[in-house]
């Protein structure tokens, strides 16, 4: 496909801007030495160029997108409609609060809703994404220990099934990481945890259900072990979609949590973002919250900042329009709808798991939550078909592959999260496709090993892409 710089002709262009109605000024700045490379295309060429690009992408609007742990649910269009209202788009973050009371009410209402959903006492909407939320939460834990004169607490415990961002965020926040192994069932090894805690334990980072889609039945014991050692418990909200409306991280004993609005609360993510990773906490961490959150007073809504705040994590109120979308989602669903959504997310995952179990080995043969993990380890040995081959073969059917090679504790992993917004017909179709791929793999493994056969790009050189990526256009 041609790039925008390879299209058009010199001198061609389009007049989208009105004529200039102010006097021309020549800036006293150094002159550009080389001519700028600007595209010279007509409006028709431009429009077709982006339509071509769009056809080469795959989003939730195009088809099934079971990227495990990413919760690629459908984003209702009403969210976009609300976020496009002029009252939300034509405002300035520095506008006097009395002129933007509606916006503050949005912030306040979402804070209240998230508090209820997560079982927390406070929420900041500032963090711009999940890992940013983790970093924020860890800074809160750090500030708490510091305020207590307890600075020997330098270690964060992370199970080996955790998301890679957990240890990375903890290291960024200046902690040392202690890795603990998972048990046979993929859950935290409680005995290993007991051995790992001590006077230097700052906290634990955990997601529940965990990364293999299993609800950790020992969760109350786990958080108690940490609390007894003097540490705090951090909940990674990546998998909240499985439990929202059913149970709450706050009730499991967690002190601080981040939620991914772009996963659980149906705001766009991936290339379409931006994300939003609000952080909730119990009262003991409230004095350290990042600046600027909405409060309700007798006169109306206001911004408040904490005296011992860790400082701002982002400018102003965070990704405001994402917040509007998430609030629209929660308000549309209501308490009953939220509950139904997580029920269906778990039901869909289990439906697919059971229907696929005859053709694909399950890493854990138990009832799962919102996602399940298949392993191609045996198939790799028997017929040399890997998780990568199955994922590539799915592309020929217009289906986005599941998460691959994660979590690391499962070899040749494919992690499937259908979410609640897929119909039974769609899941039946995908189940049939996966059966067909496995049949083909047994009869003609070479065909599957060379998949995909019908996409524009087949199997790029991943090593080269990682080591010598070409990310800018080179002009002759």
């Amino acid at each position, binding site marked *: 496909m041609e790039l925008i710089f390879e299209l058009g002709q010199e001198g061609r262009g389009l007049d989208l801007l009105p004529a200039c109605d102010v006097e021309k000024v020549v800036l006293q700045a150094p002159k550009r030495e080389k001519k700028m490379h600007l595209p010279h295309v007509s409006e028709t060429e431009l429009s077709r160029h982006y339509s071509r690009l769009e056809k080469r992408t795959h989003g939730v609007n195009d088809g099934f997108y079971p990227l495990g742990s990413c919760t690629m649910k459908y984003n209702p269009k009403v969210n976009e409609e609300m976020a496009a209202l002029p009252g939300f788009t034509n405002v300035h973050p520095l506008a006097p609060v009395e002129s933007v009371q509606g916006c503050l009410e949005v912030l306040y209402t979402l804070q209240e809703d998230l508090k209820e959903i997560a079982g927390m006492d406070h929420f900041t909407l500032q963090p711009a994404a999940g890992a940013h939320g983790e970093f924020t939460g860890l800074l809160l834990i750090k500030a708490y220990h510091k305020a207590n004169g307890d600075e020997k607490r330098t270690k964060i415990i992370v199970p080996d099934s955790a998301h*890679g961002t957990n240890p990375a965020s903890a290291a960024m926040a200046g902690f040392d990481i202690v890795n603990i192994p998972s048990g046979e069932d993929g859950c935290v090894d409680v005995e290993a945890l007991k051995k790992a805690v001590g006077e230097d334990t700052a906290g634990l980072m955990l997601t529940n259900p965990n990364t293999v889609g299993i609800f950790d039945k020992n969760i109350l014991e786990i958080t108690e072990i940490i609390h007894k050692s003097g540490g705090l418990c951090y909940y990674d909200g990546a998998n909240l979609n499985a439990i929202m409306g059913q149970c709450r991280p706050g009730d499991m004993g967690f002190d601080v949590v981040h939620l991914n609005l772009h996963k659980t609360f149906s705001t766009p993510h991936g290339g379409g973002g931006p994300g939003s990773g609000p952080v909730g906490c119990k009262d003991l961490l409230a004095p350290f919250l990042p600046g600027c959150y909405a409060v309700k007073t007798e006169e109306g809504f206001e911004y408040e900042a904490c005296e011992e705040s860790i400082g701002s994590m982002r400018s102003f109120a965070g990704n405001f329009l994402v917040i509007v979308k998430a609030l629209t989602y929660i308000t549309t669903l209501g308490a009953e709808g939220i509950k139904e959504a997580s029920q269906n997310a778990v039901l869909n995952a289990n439906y697919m798991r059971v229907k696929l179990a005859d053709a694909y080995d399950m890493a854990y043969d138990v009832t799962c939550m919102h996602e399940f993990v298949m392993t191609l*380890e045996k198939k790799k*040995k028997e017929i040399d078909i890997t998780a990568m081959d199955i994922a590539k073969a799915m592309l020929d059917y217009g289906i986005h592959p599941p998460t*691959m*090679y*994660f979590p*690391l504790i499962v*070899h040749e992993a494919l992690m499937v999260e259908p979410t609640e917004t897929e119909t039974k017909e769609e899941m039946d179709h995908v189940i049939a496709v996966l059966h067909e791929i496995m049949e083909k793999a047994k009869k003609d493994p070479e065909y599957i090993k060379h998949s995909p056969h019908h996409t524009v790009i087949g199997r790029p050189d*991943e*090593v080269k892409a*990682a*080591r010598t990526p070409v990310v800018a256009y080179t002009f002759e």
Partner: protein
Amino acid sequence: MSTPTELKYSKTHEWVKEEGDVMVIGLTDFAQNELGDLVFVNLPEEGDEVEAGEAFGDVESVKAVSDVISPVSGEVCAINEDLLDNPAAINEDAYGAWLIKVKNVSDSEELMDASEYDKFCESEK
């Protein structure tokens, strides 16, 4: 690929070769095969201390980043700088592409010989 009998092996899939007082350390063929195509290698610097059972570097494949655990304690006296530009050498020849050399060796993990290691890998599968 057959496992060289002149080397010793750790449970975390590193090989050790004795060259007089110096221990040469690398990743086994089993390890490179499990990791997949390697993209980056992070090594310590000459003069750094390594400790038996602790990570001294990491390797990144297209799938994941993994620590490389030192089978011995001692001082790094050489690193294989060629690997920094060409990590794929480990995929091509795991027993030729050494990572570091360690001198003043003071401690060592319990290591296996080739046949014990082969059995160990079989049980890992």
